[in-house]
């Protein structure tokens, strides 16, 4: 028996020197490509279209065109509620703190020189506030103007300067109030206006669900992968202005595929500073991007921090032919 066993040892000795998986096996395992075939989970190899979010709930990036304010006064009411279920990724709902039941809060838009009047109605159980970026008096800063539960407060100031201004709750602990969803974008248009074109508002943010200091999902406008499932339709040759704001505490890099954009940092100038396809936006930084697509098809728009993209900060532009052209083709 021992002799037979010893024979086995000698026969098998070569085997035991080898790693658990041979180089050849490894090459075979990884040599041929295994694209995910079941849907848009990777959101990279397949054309989009699988519905994952309720389309009713998708945050519409379209902005209403700037219009003159009646009597030069812009009035907004932001109703603050806590623990509203917000779908941060398909199927994953977290109890968020919301302005008007939305994360991010609604886009507030005014023209430079307008009087902005924002009433915060606190329907939560904790005190809250709104801090607006931009120029305003000290007592409208949202740091001391804390609104107790059940109360309301009206912030009023003159819109200045033009550009993109974040707004967010500034009650301690501020990190909790912001990360739970109390933030939004305010657009102040220059008096003379910008060149009219189709406009989109895109907020970059993230969600740390298990509070371990690392975000679990990154999102355009509050939902990971939402424009991967519901691509934004653009028309070929149509000029687009995109207002982008980074509201998370990491740098983010808006990047367009197959295209370049004119960059207006903070939106505070009418002259672009750069023609590029990637620009790092640090914490609370924002920019206006202007571009147009010259070829039809699906183009990714993403954050170029690959981790952010892979955890939801990507989407698709579906660039289609202008209607006139499509109609002509149909006639033929």
């Amino acid at each position, binding site marked *: 028996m021992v002799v037979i066993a010893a024979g086995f040892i000698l026969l098998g000795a070569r085997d035991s020197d080898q790693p*658990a998986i041979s180089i050849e096996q490894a090459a075979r395992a990884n040599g041929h490509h295994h694209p995910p075939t079941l849907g848009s989970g990777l959101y990279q190899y397949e054309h989009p279209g699988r519905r994952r979010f309720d389309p009713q709930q998708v945050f519409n990036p379209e902005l209403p065109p700037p219009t003159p304010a009646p009597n030069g006064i812009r009035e907004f009411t932001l109703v603050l509620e806590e623990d509203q279920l917000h779908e941060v990724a398909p199927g994953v709902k977290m109890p968020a703190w919301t302005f008007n039941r939305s994360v991010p809060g609604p886009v507030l838009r005014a023209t430079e020189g307008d009087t902005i009047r924002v009433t915060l109605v606190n329907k939560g159980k904790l005190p809250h506030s709104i801090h607006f970026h931009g120029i305003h008096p000290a007592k409208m800063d949202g740091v001391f103007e804390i609104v107790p539960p059940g109360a309301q407060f009206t912030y009023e100031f003159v819109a200045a300067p033009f550009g993109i201004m974040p707004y967010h709750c500034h009650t301690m602990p501020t990190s909790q109030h912001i990360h739970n969803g109390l933030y939004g974008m305010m657009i102040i248009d220059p008096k003379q206006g910008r060149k009219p074109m189709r406009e989109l508002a895109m907020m970059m943010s993230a969600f740390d669900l*298990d509070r371990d200091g690392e975000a679990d999902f990154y999102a355009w406008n509050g939902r990971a992968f939402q424009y991967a499932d519901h691509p934004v339709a653009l028309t070929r040759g149509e000029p687009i202005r995109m207002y982008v704001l980074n509201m998370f505490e990491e740098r983010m890099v808006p990047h367009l595929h197959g295209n370049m954009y004119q960059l207006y940092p903070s939106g505070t100038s009418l002259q672009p500073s750069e023609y590029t396809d990637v620009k790092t936006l640090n914490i609370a930084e924002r920019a206006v991007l202007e571009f147009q697509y010259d070829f039809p098809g699906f183009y990714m728009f993403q954050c170029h921090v690959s981790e952010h993209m892979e955890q939801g900060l990507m989407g698709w532009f579906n660039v289609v032919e202008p209607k006139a052209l499509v109609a002509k083709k149909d006639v033929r």
Partner: protein
Amino acid sequence: MAESVAERQMEDLVAHDQTAAATSSVARRGSRAAIIASALLPVMLLAGILYLLVQRGTGLALAPPAPIERIEFERVELYPGEIRAHVINSGPESVTIAQVQVGWLNRASWEFTATPSATIPRLGRAVVRIPYPWVAGEPYEVVLLTANTLVFTHEIAIAAETPVAGGSTLGSLALLGVYVGVIPVFLGIGWLPFLRALPQRGYYFFLNLTLGLLVFLGVDALHEALENAALVPGPYQGIALILIGLSLSILLLYAISGRVKGREGSGGNGLLLAYTIALSIGLHNLGEGLAIGGAYALGEVATGTLLVLGFTLHNLTEGVAVVAPVVRSRFRWVHLLWLGLLAGLPTIAGTMAGALAYSALWSVLFLAVGAGAIIQVVIEITRHQIRESGTASLANAFNVAGFAAGLAVMYVTGLFVTV
């Protein structure tokens, strides 16, 4: 209903009672009914209270502040282009897996399918298949996110393809079992002529050396069982499994050896003891095999050759332990073959089972059963020695040295296997 059954049983009992007078029979009937009622009453009251609790709740009206969900990974397998996680819901309520991420440098959201369903009931299981193009040798993290935003992660230390039940895989695993379990035992048994040639003192030295080895093995098995117990899904209570495996194996071995002894009608039987040792070492080797196979399945056998060499050296002494009680008795040589196979073969079964269907639960149970068997054998050998040479022999310098040598041998050879 219950009362009528009880009464009928009472009547039967009373009917058999021929000597009882009619009057005392009635009295006894009454008192027996009272005894049975007193036994049933608390049970019925408890049932009533439980019913009320279920119907009305505890009355504390406490809603948990956050959903209590728990998903545990039982086994994660890697196939070309696919990560397959076997998970169990060990929380109090059902759980829905809504998103899956795979971490490498960073996490990436990934496509997945869950069978039979992404919603897993309490203590239910699911297999989550992730079509991920993993690369051998890389570390990964499998992250499951529930619909209620809870995050559960499993780390793959080194990615390696999970062995499938193919002929060559089974063959090489069996060979691993042969190296680790069978060969060392038989090599140890090969020392029998040498042990026979030793004088009385030398024999006791080796018997005590065996004791040392076994105590070391027992502690080692318990240690491994405790380590693996942490990996057992909560509701299966790893520590309780150890207690059950340990005590049941001791009791069962006593019951078996008691029966065999009773049948043979003899007191100390060296061969029986040898078989008990072989069985206990076999059980221990089964657990060890499961651990080795499991490590292989998890891609952790990086230092494979060294590990195999170490185990072989380490287990050489097991053969000595098996034959120690029969050194001075005569028996047919074929028993040696059976003894060796009993002690060694379970290793093969263990390595194959461990690699193909590794689960912490089974390895904990088998390691505990092995530890229990070893404890029983240690007690038996000690009694055997006391019977033959008296209690004083335990404190004999030679025997103490043997015991210490046994521990030392295991410790030193253990240096090769401890990674």
